[in-house]
């Protein structure tokens, strides 16, 4: 029962975080929130029993992908207009 509550909570948080990452105007904040999204995915997969996928998402998604996104944003204008 507790596991189902955990599952539902993380899924709802996932939707909120996805919307937030697209709504903020500062691109670095959007990239960091996207990192949070990756971490929540990793948690979800670890709970589902997909440990290899969770490990890969934790390193690749929350590690490499976020860093590469922030590295790009530092070269362009940091403030999005919409």
């Amino acid at each position, binding site marked *: 029962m507790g596991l189902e509550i955990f599952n539902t909570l993380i899924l709802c948080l996932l*939707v909120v975080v996805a919307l937030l990452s697209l709504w903020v105007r500062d691109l670095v904040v959007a990239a960091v929130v996207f990192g949070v999204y990756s971490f929540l995915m990793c948690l979800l997969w670890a709970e589902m029993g*997909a440990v*290899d996928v969770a490990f890969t998402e934790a390193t690749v998604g929350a590690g490499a992908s976020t860093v590469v996104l922030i590295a790009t944003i530092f070269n*362009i*204008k940091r403030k999005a*207009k*919409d």
Partner: protein
Amino acid sequence: MFDDGSILNQLLIERLNYFIYVVLLLIGLWAMIAKNNLIKKLIGMSIFQTAIILFYVSIGVKDGATIPIYLPEHDPHGSDAQRDLNGTGSLLIEPQVLDASLIPQYTNPLPHVLMLTAIVVGVATLGLALSICLRIYRAYGTVEEDELLIKLENEDARKKGLPRKRWPRRKPTQNKPGSSIKNKKAGLPERTRVTKPDSARSRKPRNQTNRADRTGPESSHKSQEIEKKRPARRKRAKSSNPTKEDNAS
């Protein structure tokens, strides 16, 4: 409304997970279509990709199953297997195929394998798309879609000799605290948008102000900016960079 068998019950209670995956797919798809900023579009693309991976992995879930690594008691070559302790250390029992009744105990490994590839390919795609964004910024000075369209049309019009379009009108943004004081001191009205006429618009792209809006942590370092061109170009009203105002010429 919520009784057994109705649509809402089926979707929201029994299959809540799938419903939320559909919502995530929609968020990613909408972001790719409707957002103006190219980086936001790419974030939408990544959300779309990870939502699909989530869906794929979750169809291999079995109730009460463990992770797809052999438990020591089922592993024919593992630490629990009986070995010949006197001489060679070889196995006493001939290794056998896992019993079919034990298969539902293990999560299905096939979706995991496919999605490992998908995640890595996703990050490769993201890197490539970001490099194209950087090239666009280098060439046109902006990553907003509507500004890009206008610049492209102006380029075409300039080649053909037709009249050029104006910059897109945007809603005035909220006043930040403090900025209105600066503008009042300079005698300007609050937050007017200065649009230059076409003849005064320079042809050079806007990336002259490369890394121009660095605020915050950068200004706390001891930073010296070595400018390579004449500083007279900097006289635009840029209110967002404290370091330049420190070294104001």
